[in-house]
């Protein structure tokens, strides 16, 4: 394997680890989704980019390169829809919340 591939995989797994720690330890659904989606998406895209650099322009490499924007758009749009649904459902924000701007927009 390439050196660059190894570095990209290790960076991606570090991002995944931080995202999962945030998923366990943050106090609120909104905080958890905000931490976990961004970190885990970027980490997994880094791993797929390492796969592309390892295999080059073969079938697997090009499929990994296609999967990167698919994962970006699918994960972020899905998280946005889920968080909007949870807000409309009426889930409470945590007690440490400073400002809630979506409530003012909604009325």
């Amino acid at each position, binding site marked *: *394997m390439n050196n660059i591939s*190894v570095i990209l*995989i*290790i960076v*991606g*797994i570090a991002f*995944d*680890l931080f*995202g*999962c*720690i945030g*998923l*366990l330890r943050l106090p609120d*659904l909104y905080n*958890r*989704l905000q931490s*976990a*989606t961004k970190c*885990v*998406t970027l*980490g*997994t895209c880094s*791993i*797929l980019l*390492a*796969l592309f650099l*390892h295999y080059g322009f073969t*079938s*697997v490499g090009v*499929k*990994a390169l*296609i*999967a990167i924007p*698919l*994962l970006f758009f*699918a*994960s972020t*749009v*899905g*998280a946005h*829809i*889920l968080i*909007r*649904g*949870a807000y*409309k*459902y*009426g*889930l409470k924000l945590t007690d440490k919340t400073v400002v809630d701007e979506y409530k003012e927009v909604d009325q």
Partner: protein
Amino acid sequence: MIDILLYILMGMSFLCFIRVLLGPTMADRMVAIDIFGILVVGICALLILKTGRLFLIDVAIAWIMLSFIGTIALGKYLTRNKLDE
């Protein structure tokens, strides 16, 4: 070295299942399942590098689409059912 990284990634998916067990509401559990779906894509990518089975990238792409559809279904379901407060 790929083995160690694969074990770390599997441990992180175990953390996601802890959140599935602990989660107070249904949305918390669905968020954890969503994050688990993204982690499985990384596990598939590392398994390609370890074993050389090239069909696993198709499994990864299909998993991304199925996770997206499940998340959208739960989001629309949550939007229609408001709590009375």
